[in-house]
């Protein structure tokens, strides 16, 4: 069964006029083949996916010269036929199974629903089928898992469950919309293999992703979308190997993996460490009341002007470490010294916030979600003015200071009057950076500063951070789950797993010759995913 799309256009009426989400998109998807839609947020990938199963929404105006599945014209399909088609002829996998599966129901029921929706078999038969499917997608103890809810499953398992529910009726075609985004690299690799198996099993796959590396591993045919326009399409090897369109090239170059690794800053041996942490550990009581160790004797030191990378999978304790360093969370044991003085001290005679406050300006933070860190009522000007006043900025001329800051982070002065909510992700993160440098800190803690951004923007922000470090000479404590980013940014690296540091050392050495097994798996996963 083949899906043929010719000049598909989707548009939405908006107060300001017709907004064209997708324009003249054409491709053909055959069983056993993989077509990839690549592009950054707002490029129209998802709209396309939804249009193909008739779920673009009532306000959407979908038009095409040809839109047929196995010869059946989809353009004037009555709702009931659409329903019959969904799940049976085309399956759909969304990103993040935690919300893509009903969080209140056991995954087994969700999968069974794909069967019952099409009156497939008896109840017993369906349950049987559910078991098979779970096994097929490689979930151990399927009987148990079927009774668990998404939040009770690990990221990898639940994503597999989601896929299982999509392929329940073995549809010839499968649409995967960002199937691996926000997953840890190792999990991404597993999903990659699973999708590969499905393709080999003869399923036609429409793969939607922003991750070129991931796409290159799977797709036969790549379509690069930019603002709803097709900028380039063709054989994967050709498009990714010899891109003709500039945008494609920027996308490729943006991939941190392609960026030369950082040349380590020479360590000023004479200078005392800017920041030292000793056997920090912390345990927290979970909702079930059971105390869990989330950090165990973590210790490290960071010298002025250098960048220390903190890598590990989600839940490995990276952010907790950062918060303790920031003095926002009190550890159970251990202490932190900053600029040679006691900064954080566990136990009763800890350092009072009052004693920290004068030195706080010397340490700034950049958050993964900048928006949440801005007061929704404030304009960019107010935000920066506030930061400057905190930094005890001497120059009387606020507006000038703000202008210089904005210029420093490559933002137009006009931004000053706007609220962060109205800005793009990249702009927001730049404002966050501007706020951080406003206080002229000696250390900036960066918690996943780019993981929420499109690749091209990612690259620009990373460039900016490097540049600022060169100019202002501050040190970074840099947290990321992305090896590429770490390789590019860091002098030294700490690898964390389950709240412990499993390996530490110079980036060059760790990322080339890892000693610890976990580090190696991380690297392998990254290898699998990075473009050929």
């Amino acid at each position: 069964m083949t899906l043929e799309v010719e000049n598909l256009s989707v548009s939405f009426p908006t107060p300001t006029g017709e907004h064209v989400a997708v324009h003249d998109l054409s491709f053909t998807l055959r069983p056993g083949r993989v077509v990839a839609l690549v592009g950054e947020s707002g490029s129209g990938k998802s709209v396309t996916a939804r249009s193909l199963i008739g779920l673009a929404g009532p306000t959407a105006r979908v038009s095409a010269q040809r839109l047929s599945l196995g010869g059946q014209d989809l353009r004037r399909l009555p709702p009931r036929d659409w329903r019959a088609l969904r799940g049976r002829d085309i399956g759909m996998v969304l990103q993040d199974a935690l919300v893509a599966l009903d969080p209140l129901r056991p995954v087994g029921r969700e999968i069974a629903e794909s069967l019952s929706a099409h009156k497939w078999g008896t109840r017993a038969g369906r349950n049987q089928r559910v078991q098979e499917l779970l096994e097929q997608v490689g979930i151990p103890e399927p009987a148990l898992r079927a009774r668990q809810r998404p939040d009770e499953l690990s990221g990898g398992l639940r994503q597999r469950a989601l896929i299982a529910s999509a392929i329940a009726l073995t549809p010839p075609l499968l649409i995967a919309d960002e199937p691996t985004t926000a997953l840890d690299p190792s999990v991404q690799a597993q999903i990659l293999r699973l999708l590969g198996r499905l393709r080999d099993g003869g399923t036609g796959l429409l793969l939607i992703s922003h991750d070129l590396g991931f796409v290159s591993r799977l797709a036969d045919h790549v379509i690069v979308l930019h603002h709803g326009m097709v900028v380039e399409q063709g054989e994967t090897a050709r498009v990714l190997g010899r891109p003709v369109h500039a945008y494609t090239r920027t996308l490729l170059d943006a991939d941190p993996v392609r960026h030369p690794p950082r040349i380590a800053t020479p360590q000023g041996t004479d200078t005392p460490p800017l920041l030292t942490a000793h056997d920090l550990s912390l345990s927290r009581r979970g909702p079930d009341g059971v105390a869990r160790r989330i950090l165990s004797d973590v210790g490290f030191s960071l010298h002025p002007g250098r960048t220390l990378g903190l890598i590990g999978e989600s839940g490995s304790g990276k952010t907790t470490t950062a918060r303790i360093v920031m003095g926002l969370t009190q550890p159970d044991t251990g202490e932190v010294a900053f600029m040679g003085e006691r900064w954080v001290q566990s136990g009763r005679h800890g350092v009072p916030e009052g004693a920290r406050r004068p030195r706080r300006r010397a340490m700034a933070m950049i958050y993964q979600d900048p928006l949440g860190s801005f007061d929704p009522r404030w304009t960019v000007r107010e935000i920066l003015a506030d930061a400057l006043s905190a930094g005890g900025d001497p120059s009387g001329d606020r507006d000038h200071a703000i202008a210089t800051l904005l210029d420093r982070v490559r933002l137009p002065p006009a931004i000053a009057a706007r609220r962060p909510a109205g800005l793009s992700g990249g702009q927001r993160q730049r404002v966050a950076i501007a706020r951080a440098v406003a206080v002229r800190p000696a250390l900036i803690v960066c918690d996943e500063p780019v993981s929420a951004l499109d690749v091209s923007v990612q690259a620009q922000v990373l460039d900016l951070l490097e540049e600022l470090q060169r100019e202002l000479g501050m040190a970074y404590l840099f947290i990321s789950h992305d090896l590429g980013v770490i390789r590019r940014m860091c002098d030294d690296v700490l690898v964390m797993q389950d709240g412990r540091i499993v390996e530490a050392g110079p980036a060059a050495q760790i990322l080339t010759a890892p000693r610890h097994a976990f580090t190696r798996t991380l690297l392998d996963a990254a290898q699998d995913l990075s473009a050929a």
Partner: protein
Amino acid sequence: MTSLSLAPSMARLPSRRRLPRPGQLGPVAAILFLTLLAIAALAPHLLTHADPLAIAPRDAFQAPSAAHPFGTDQSGRDILARVVYGARQSLALGCGAITLSLSIATILALIGGLGGRIAEQAVRWLIDILFAFPVLVLALLCTATLGSGIGPLIVAIGVGSAAGYTRMVFGQVLSVRGAGYVEAARALGHSPARIVARHILPNAFRPLVVTATMGIGQTVVWSAALSFLGLGAPPPAAEWGTMLSMGRDFIAEAWWMSFFPGLAIVLTMLSTTVAGRALQRAIEGRGP
């Protein structure tokens, strides 16, 4: 090129923009009615020439007519006039009560939100306790204690409805207290006082404008309920709830006696709600 229209039953993109809300004219009507109320409260004589207190026993129980658009009551007083003049009473009650209960709520919420663990737990319990007393029950107790009349009524409703608002403001304070930007401010080394003043207070209380607007209507209803139970303003004062309860004894003979005051109450409630919603959208519009 052909265009296929998809059945409306299908999912939409997660865009919060929707069809125009039920009647953009809703808010307009609401504002109009509220202005009318304001006039009635401030300059009632502009809306009616009749004297709300002048009795004419022999014109009692007249059905709505040109002379008496809303009819007359059991003493032959013009009901339109009484409804109009009653607006001041009722609005005074509404505004007074909502102000009182919101100030109670604010104070408790701040104590609970910023006063440390014990204060927090204490406030939680206090809210529980207050909630265990339905508004009317508390109000009954209050009026039993303070006697009847406007002042006690305001206190009664104010205290009675405080629980709900306290819980709301308290929750707001807590969520703001944990917000990312408050932490960011701490990280910048701002003093707690400054953080409270510049972040927590403004953000916690921004929704209060809306709440207050909507609350007025609710409190008007409650005060009417109390006057209805005979605890309202002393005669001959025109007060909607009192008129309503008086009218109920004559409902079979003169439906208009309780219908029109009730209508006034309902319209007040509705228009404050609608206006409040509009206000909310406006704030959110210029907010995040």
